[in-house]
């Protein structure tokens, strides 16, 4: 269950969503500048809505009426940013272990080797992020987020900047991860075709219009 009913005004621009879906994976589709990333930031707690409710898998992360606003680090939302934001002072293995070291004590562990194998980054472990291609960085960022045992995964344009072959690889990988780790997932894409392959439900995000999805 993914619920994002939130509103935030930036001067004259308003970004508003009214999404409630039983699907475990949701794609936000729309052109650049429509507010897709802002919605993800609100789910991650990096931006605060003016009003609304955000809940994932039964956990309420934000509720303006009840005064709930869980801090980003307590939300357990694995966020794979559009630019992968790997820590340049750590190797690939170091970045992955950074995520793993922050997994909450009670959470069922996801094996380091399992993630490394699933993402196909085993030959990259000793490399620094600066020596990776765009697709490799994305995969490491996904692995780092997964290993922190999040309650949900956010993927912002995970396929952007990849050539067709790499896109296909990553689509297959994301679908496999989704099915294997049973994680609720919200992803952003500007291509409807990708969104439909990656997620069970999709919502259209248009500039200046409320995003709605109810199931």
């Amino acid at each position: 269950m993914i619920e994002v009913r939130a509103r935030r005004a930036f001067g004259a621009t308003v970004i508003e969503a009214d999404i409630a879906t039983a699907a475990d994976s949701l794609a936000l589709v729309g052109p650049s500048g429509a507010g897709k990333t802002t919605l993800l930031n609100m789910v991650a707690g990096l931006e605060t809505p003016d009003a609304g409710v955000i809940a994932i898998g039964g956990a309420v992360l934000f509720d303006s009426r009840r005064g709930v606003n869980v801090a980003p680090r307590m939300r357990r939302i694995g966020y794979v940013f559009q630019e992968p934001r790997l820590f340049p002072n750590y190797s690939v293995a170091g970045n992955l272990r950074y995520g793993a070291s922050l997994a909450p004590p009670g959470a069922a562990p996801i094996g380091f080797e399992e993630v490394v194998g699933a993402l196909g980054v085993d030959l990259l472990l000793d490399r620094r992020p600066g020596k990776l291609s765009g697709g490799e960085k994305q995969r490491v960022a996904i692995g780092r987020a997964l290993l922190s045992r999040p309650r949900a995964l956010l993927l912002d344009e995970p396929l952007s900047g990849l050539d067709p072959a790499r896109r296909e690889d990553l689509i297959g990988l994301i679908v496999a991860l989704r099915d294997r780790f049973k994680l609720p997932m919200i992803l952003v894409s500007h291509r409807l075709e990708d969104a439909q392959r990656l997620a069970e439900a999709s919502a259209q995000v248009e500039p200046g219009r409320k995003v709605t999805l109810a199931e």
Partner: protein
Amino acid sequence: MTATEWTAVMLSLRVASVGALASLPFAIAVAYALARGRFPGKTALDVLVHLPLVMPPVVTGWLLLIGFGRHGVFGEFFERVFGVTFAFRWTGAALAAGVMGFPMMVRAIRLSLESVDHKLEQAAATLGAGPLRIFATVTLPLAFPGVFAGLILGFAKAIGEFGATITFVANIPGETQTLATAIYNTTQDPAGASSTWRLTAIAIAIAIIALSASEALARGLGGRAR
């Protein structure tokens, strides 16, 4: 080299090292507050930190004497609680050196902290890292070349410190006479020209070694971070 000259050189190195290293944690904390913090009085803190850079050093020295002298509020406190005396001791020279180098240290560290991409800190937060952990594992390591440059600047400033030191702890051979105050002494002595030359050569050598070491280390660290 005479025993007095040798003592002054060694004391200078000790005073500058202790002054720079002891003020480093405070400089990092203040630089972080100025770089990332939003709090009332931030401008006032910024001004206060920069005062020793702008005020005549003799004023800083005199204020240290008032505050950290035997009968000063802080001086009495440190003597009673930690058994540390500053007035007319090498520890006072280290304090003066630390205070005088502090603004430059803070400036260098603040610049390097500001250059760390805040988005990386956000990424760490979404993974579940708390502020202290983010600082220790992401911010500080990425700012390290700047922190190191700040330390070297503080050390260099401390080696050259004169006005605040001589006002606060005087110029006592073997206790508070540093390279700078020793050179001042020799210039006042008509027979001291050769001594002045020797000490000047040592001062130049220390400066070159410190700057070269900092350049080499910064280049090495910069390379490793990429």
